[in-house]
């Protein structure tokens, strides 16, 4: 597989936060690839480092974060030729990185309520990136914004383009946030729990919208979520994270049909399904996620794992490739070849 098929290649990404001169590791040796035109879902419970991972990639991190990576490479494809960008070597807010944000990589954030600047009209906020990168006139930008609003199903767009964020409902605000991310027609869309703050009916609408845009234009998506139903619907590949590590990575089929890691199994068992028996209880994962500051050596999931063995608590657990492209970080599979 060459660079044409891989849009984003992340190798051994490590992120830590420094507070009171103490460094706490949050993301540990995260590696994954996003295939062009496909959707990668990153799943895991709250605090497992999903958001930090993608924010580290696009370098939108708070000042006290330290990000190191062996490789974070974005491959832009234009007229059949690939241009490689090493994001890990770029300055966070430098010119190179800024040129990619918007036209190449679009971002949708978790909370639409606070993601829009309260003092500017939504139309201007959407147009801002467009004017910045394409140097077009305001009138032209307005036309493009109107088209995008129509595409995203915002009713009465001519009127609403002049409204302020507080005049929008949550679902409509998220459409505006998506419009900001998509207006420069990026190849890769990173959606960080785009529907968590919205109610279920709106969730479905927003996701359908994103899926439609992806299929029509052949875009790639990284979807961060803890909603397994959404994963099943949207994803081509799935990356399961726990305590800052990728514990299982594979195609949708690998993860749902050949579930391998005990954590992924537990995660799937805790999803409510329609054909549950009366009185059948939904399973939960025992225990709580440990504090990243006082993690012991060995497997991070050991204390909550029903299949935990003595040797799970020693050293760093490597990942094993149980079938091509399906990686599991669990000693149960140590007869398979080790991979990075």
């Amino acid at each position: 597989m060459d660079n044409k098929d891989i849009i984003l290649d992340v190798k051994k990404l490590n992120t830590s936060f420094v507070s009171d001169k103490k460094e706490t590791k949050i993301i540990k040796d995260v590696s994954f690839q996003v295939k062009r035109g496909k959707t990668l879902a990153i799943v895991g419970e709250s605090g497992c480092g999903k958001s930090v991972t993608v924010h580290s990639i696009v370098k939108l991190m708070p000042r006290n974060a330290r990000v190191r990576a062996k490789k974070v490479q974005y491959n832009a494809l234009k007229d059949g030729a690939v241009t490689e960008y090493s994001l890990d070597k770029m300055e966070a807010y430098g010119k190179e990185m800024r040129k990619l944000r918007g036209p190449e990589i679009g971002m949708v954030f978790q909370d639409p309520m606070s993601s829009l600047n309260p003092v500017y009209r939504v139309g201007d906020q959407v147009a801002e990136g467009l004017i910045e990168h394409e140097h077009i006139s305001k009138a032209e930008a307005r036309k493009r914004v109107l088209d995008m609003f129509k595409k995203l199903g915002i009713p009465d767009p001519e009127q609403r383009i002049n409204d302020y964020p507080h005049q929008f409902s949550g679902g409509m605000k998220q459409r505006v946030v998506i419009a900001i991310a998509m207006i420069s027609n990026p190849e890769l869309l990173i959606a960080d729990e785009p529907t968590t703050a919205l109610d279920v009916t709106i969730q479905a609408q927003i996701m359908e919208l994103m899926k439609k845009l992806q299929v029509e234009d052949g875009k790639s998506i990284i979807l961060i979520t803890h909603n397994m139903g959404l994963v099943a619907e949207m994803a081509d590949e799935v990356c399961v994270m726990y305590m800052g590590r990728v514990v299982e990575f594979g195609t949708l089929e690998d993860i749902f049909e050949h579930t391998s890691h005990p954590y992924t199994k537990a995660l799937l068992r805790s999803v409510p399904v329609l054909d549950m028996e009366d009185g059948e209880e939904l399973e939960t994962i025992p225990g709580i996620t440990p504090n990243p500051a006082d993690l012991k050596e060995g497997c991070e999931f050991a204390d909550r794992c029903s299949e935990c063995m003595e040797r799970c608590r020693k050293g760093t657990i490597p990942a094993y490739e149980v079938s091509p492209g399906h990686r599991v970080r669990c000693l149960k599979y140590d007869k398979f070849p080790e991979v990075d």
Partner: protein
Amino acid sequence: MLKFIVKKLLQMIPMLLLISFIVFVGLQFTGIDPIYYMISPDMAANTDNIEALRELYGFNDPLLVRYFRWLGDLLQGNFGYSIVSGSSIKTLIAQRLPATLELSAFALVLSTIIGITIGIVSAIKQNGIIDYIGRVFAVVGQAIPQFFFGISMILIFAIKLGWFPTAGRMSPEGVGFGDRLWHLVLPGMTLTLSMCAVLMRYARNTMLGVLNSDYIKTARSKGIPEWKVYLKHGFRNAMRPVLVILCFRLPMLIGGSVVIEEVFAWPGIGTILTQAVVSGDYPVILVTTLMVAAAMLVASFLVDVLTALLDPRVRIGE
């Protein structure tokens, strides 16, 4: 927006009346008997004289009568006379106001520019050298009392170094802008520095808060340059609370700074007020207090209008 402004303006009238009443009544309870300030001690022995004077000045009338008489005079532009010097309060204020305006405007403009600039830069370069110096300066600026600071300035720059005059607004022989400015530097800078401290801290903290908000991340995700992130998205949001402080400093233009004017023998309104309080010159106290209160109302009106202009959410209730 126009309706909003008119409404706010009309609301000021009853407020002003209420304030004037409170000031008037409040002053009656201070126990100041102006008569004793008006006559020489040997005359005070004669109670008949005192009674006659009381009757003459209408001090024996009921409170409400006196209040409305005073208010009526005031509305006709008759501010009354100082009971100490006998001069017209209007003339007194007309003489002193330019001095106060000069000093306060100087300090207000300078402290706003310096305070906000350092505050914003400190927030952008958090824990940088400017932030560090600014933080030390802010603590020192707030901790040192104005009078001490003023006296130190006089000691160092006027007496030891002889760069600036020790006090006053102009030299007896000196006329012209240069001489005025030369006199203005020390009191102006003293006032500026003490006003900077609060503003700096405030601007820094609100800007820090704004820079951590999600919409700043959204702005950055668009790939716009950092200066636009700071000035367009950060500054305008951070300025709303800072503007409130600024507006409420405007009454200073009229009221002056009592301490600084006293230390530097600056012939402004602040000095009138202290003299009036010391000598029980209650008509002067009344008028100056009311002037400052009116200025306060104007300031709060400005806050309302400016926040509405800066923040569309405030305009909802129009």
